[in-house]
C-alpha cells in the first residue's frame, strides 16, 4: 500500500491533493424501512473489514510520516444502501461484500421476521459509515 501511495505521489503535480474515500468498519445498522420510519433489525458483522482498515491507516500514516503528504481535511458521513427486499439485500451482500462483511443468521432471521410484519411498502437499508480524508502532496523528505 505504501508503494502505491508513492506511485500516486509521483503522479500528482506539486501541491496536488490526494482524496482517500472508504467505508470504515462500524457494525453498520440494518433496518427495515416501512411506514416512513426505519426499524432496526440489528447490526451486521463487518469485523472482517477491520484488518483492511487498519492496514490502510498504517499505510497513510507511513506516507505522512515520510512527508509525502500532509493531512488537510477530514469528514465522516453515512452512506445508505437500499434494496427492495431482505432477499435482495442478502444476495447482494453475499455476492459483493465477501471478505468485508457477514450477515449473521440470527440477524437475517430478524430482518425477515420484521419484513413479514409489514404489509405495505417496505425496503431494506444498510447504512455504512464513510470517511473521506484529503492530503496535500509535499516535497519528499524521507524514504
Amino acid at each position, binding site marked *: 500500500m505504501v508503494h*502505491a501511495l508513492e506511485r500516486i505521489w509521483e*503522479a500528482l*503535480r506539486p501541491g*496536488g491533493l490526494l482524496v482517500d*474515500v472508504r*467505508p470504515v468498519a462500524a457494525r453498520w445498522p440494518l433496518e427495515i424501512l416501512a411506514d416512513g420510519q426505519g426499524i432496526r433489525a440489528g447490526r451486521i458483522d463487518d469485523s472482517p473489514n477491520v484488518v483492511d482498515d487498519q492496514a490502510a491507516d498504517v499505510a497513510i500514516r507511513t506516507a505522512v510520516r515520510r512527508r509525502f503528504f500532509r493531512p488537510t481535511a477530514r469528514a465522516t458521513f453515512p*452512506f445508505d444502501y437500499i434494496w427492495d427486499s431482505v432477499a435482495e439485500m442478502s444476495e447482494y451482500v453475499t455476492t459483493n461484500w465477501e471478505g468485508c462483511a457477514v450477515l449473521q443468521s440470527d440477524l437475517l432471521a430478524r430482518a425477515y421476521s420484521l419484513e413479514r410484519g409489514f404489509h405495505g411498502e417496505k425496503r431494506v437499508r444498510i447504512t455504512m459509515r464513510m470517511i473521506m480524508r484529503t492530503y496535500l502532496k509535499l516535497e519528499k523528505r524521507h524514504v
Partner: protein
Amino acid sequence: MTLERDPHGNETRFLHEIGRLSGARVLEVGCGEGRMTWRYAEVAESIVAIDPDPERLATAHQTCTAAWRHRTHFLLADAENLPLRRGEFDRAILAWSL
C-alpha cells in the same frame, strides 16, 4: 433488483466540498464500474480512471456518456504500476481502494 446507493448524495457532496474537483485533472484509483466517476465527471477537466478488473472497467467504459468520453479515460492498471507521467494530475482519488 432495485438498488439505491447513497440516495442523499452525501459522498458526492463531500467529494466536491473537500476534494475540490472542479476543473481538476483527476486520477481515480479503483474506479470499478465508474459509480464514483460519474459523480464528478461533469466538473473535472479530465479523468484517468484505473482498475485491475477488466470486466468492471468494461462496464465503466460502456456506461460513459458521450459528453464525457473525450476527457475520461479508463485504464486496466493498479496503483503500484501506474502507466502515467510524473506530475500529471491535480487530484488523486482512492475510491474505496486503499
